[in-house]
C-alpha cells in the first residue's frame, strides 16, 4: 500500500492501517486485502468485479470495511457488491471511494451495492466519496444503492461527498416491508464546474414503515446539483424528505420532490430550502470577531457537519 492509497483510505474510511473485523480493500480494480470473521463472510464474485457478503443472523457489534481506491490514472471500473444481513443482526458497514488522478485519463468508479436487510436487523452504512489530484480528464463516481428491508428491519445511510468529484450520479432505491425504516442523510459540496445528481426513490409497502431522507448541500463557484426524491406511500406509513441547499458564487441547485400516496393512511412530507447564506448569520458571527470569510466557512462547515 503506497502513500497515495494510505491517504485516500484515511480520507474515505478514516482507516490508518488494516481495520479490525471483516474487510475488503479494493485498489485499482483488484482486492489488496480481505478478511472474513466467524459472523461476516466475504465471498469474491467469480468475475472479480465485486463481492458477496453474508452476515449471520444475530450478529451484533461487528463492522465491515469495504473501501475502494483508484490511484492509477485511466482506471474505469464497475463493481457489484451484494450484502445479505441476517435476521436480528446489528452491524456497521463502512464503504467509500477515493480517486487520485494527476493525469489526462478519466478515472471512474461505478458501483452497485444491494442490501438485503433481514427481519429486525439494523444496518448503519457510511459512505464517503473523495477525489484529489489535478488530472484534466476528471474523476467520476456513480454509486447505486439498492435496499430491500424486511419486516421490522432498519437501515441508516450516511453519505458524504465534500471534495474532488467532478461528476456523480448517486442513485438510491429502497423498498420497505411492514415496520421497516430507512434514514438517509446526504451531505454534498461541489466546486468549480462539478456536477452532482442524487436520485432517491423509496417504496413504502408495509404498514407502519417509515422513510426519512435529509440532504444538505453546498454548491460553490459554477457547480450544479440536482436533488430528486421520490416517495411512494403504498401503505399506512410515514415519509419525510428534506433538501437544504446553500448557494454560493454562481452555483445552482434544483430540487425535485415527488410524493405519491396510494393509501389513505400514508403521510408524506417534503421540505426544501435553497438560497445563499443569510446576511444576518454572517453578521452574527462577525459580531463575535470572525471575518466575513471565517464566518462563511464556519456556517458551511456547520451546515455539512
Amino acid at each position, binding site marked *: 500500500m503506497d502513500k497515495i492509497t494510505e491517504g485516500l483510505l484515511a480520507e474515505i474510511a478514516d482507516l490508518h492501517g488494516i481495520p479490525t473485523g471483516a474487510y475488503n480493500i479494493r485498489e485499482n480494480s483488484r482486492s489488496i486485502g480481505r478478511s472474513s470473521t466467524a459472523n461476516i463472510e466475504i465471498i469474491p464474485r467469480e468475475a472479480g468485479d465485486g463481492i458477496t457478503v453474508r452476515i449471520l443472523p444475530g450478529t451484533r457489534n461487528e463492522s465491515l470495511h469495504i473501501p475502494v481506491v483508484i490511484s492509477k490514472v485511466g482506471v474505469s471500473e464497475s463493481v457489484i457488491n451484494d450484502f445479505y444481513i441476517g435476521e436480528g443482526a446489528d452491524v456497521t458497514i463502512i464503504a467509500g471511494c477515493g480517486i487520485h488522478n494527476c493525469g489526462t485519463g478519466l478515472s471512474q468508479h461505478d458501483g452497485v451495492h444491494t442490501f438485503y436487510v433481514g427481519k429486525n436487523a439494523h444496518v448503519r452504512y457510511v459512505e464517503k466519496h473523495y477525489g484529489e489530484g489535478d488530472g484534466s480528464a476528471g474523476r467520476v463516481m456513480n454509486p447505486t444503492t439498492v435496499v430491500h428491508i424486511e419486516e421490522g428491519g432498519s437501515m441508516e445511510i450516511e453519505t458524504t461527498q465534500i471534495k474532488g468529484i467532478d461528476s456523480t450520479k448517486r442513485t438510491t432505491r429502497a423498498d420497505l416491508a411492514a415496520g421497516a425504516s430507512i434514514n438517509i442523510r446526504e451531505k454534498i459540496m461541489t466546486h468549480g464546474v462539478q456536477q452532482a445528481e442524487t436520485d432517491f426513490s423509496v417504496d413504502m409497502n408495509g404498514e407502519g414503515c417509515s422513510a426519512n431522507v435529509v440532504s444538505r448541500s453546498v454548491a460553490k463557484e459554477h457547480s450544479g446539483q440536482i436533488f430528486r426524491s421520490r416517495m411512494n406511500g403504498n401503505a399506512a406509513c410515514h415519509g419525510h424528505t428534506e433538501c437544504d441547499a446553500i448557494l454560493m458564487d454562481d452555483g445552482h441547485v434544483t430540487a425535485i420532490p415527488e410524493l405519491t400516496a396510494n393509501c389513505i393512511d400514508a403521510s408524506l412530507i417534503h421540505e426544501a430550502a435553497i438560497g445563499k447564506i443569510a446576511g*444576518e448569520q454572517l453578521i452574527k458571527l462577525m*459580531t463575535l*470577531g470572525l471575518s466575513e470569510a471565517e464566518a462563511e466557512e464556519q456556517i458551511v462547515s456547520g451546515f455539512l457537519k
Partner: protein
Amino acid sequence: MVELIDLSFSAGEGEEKKEILRDVSLRFDDRLTAITGPNGGGKSTLAKLIAGILVPTGGRILLDGEDITALSVTERARRGISFAFQTPVRFKGITVRDLIMLASGKKIGMAEACDYLSEVGLCARDYINREVNASLSGGELKRIEIATILARGTSFSVFDEPEAGIDLWSFQNLIRVFEKIHREKQDSVLIISHQERILNIADRIVVLAGGEVVNDGTPEKIMPTLTGKVVSSCRPFEKAGGYHG
C-alpha cells in the same frame, strides 16, 4: 468607554429619505446604561451603529478614544464591542457549544461552556449539544444569545431589547441575569429596553425619541417622567413585552 459625537443616520434616498438619528452625542462610561423611548425613536439604529452593522451618515464613534467610525463589524468586535441581537439568529448545524466557543475566541472545555449557560439559567446538559435552530424557543435563544456575550467578556456590550419576544417566566430569569451582570461585572453594558425592571437596575437612563436625546439621567430622575407621560396610558409594565409606544 464609547463616545458618540454628533451621530446621524438617514435611511432611503430622495423624497423617501428619512432621518432616523440626528446629531446624537452621548458618552457611555457608566457600568449599565439603558436607552428607552418610543418605537421608531432610533434606539436599535443607535445600537447597530455602535456595533458597526449600520454605517452613520454623519458624526463619529470613539472607543476608548480611538475613532472606530470606519471600522467593520469584525474589527469593532475584536476591539471589544459585543452586540446581542433583538431577534437571535438561527443556524443549521452550529451547536450551542460551537457558538459559545466562537464567542470566547478560544478553545474552551465543556465545563467552561456549561458555566456560561448556567449563568443565564439554562441547564447546560440539555442545551450544550443542541443546534441553534428553530427547535429552540424564543426565550431559550435569547438566553443563549446572552451567554455568547458573557463568553466574549468584552469591555462594552450592547443588548438590543433583550426582553422582546420572550414569555413572562423567561423574563424573570432575564432580569436576574442582568442584575447579576450589574452586580458582578465591571464592564460597560448598554441595554435598549422598554422594561421598567430593566430600566430600574440601570445606573443611567437615556430617552431617545424622534432621533434625538430628549432626556438623560438617573432612574430616580427619569422614571417618574416615563411613567407619568409616556407609559401610563398603555399600562406597559404589567406584561413581559413592555410598552411599545
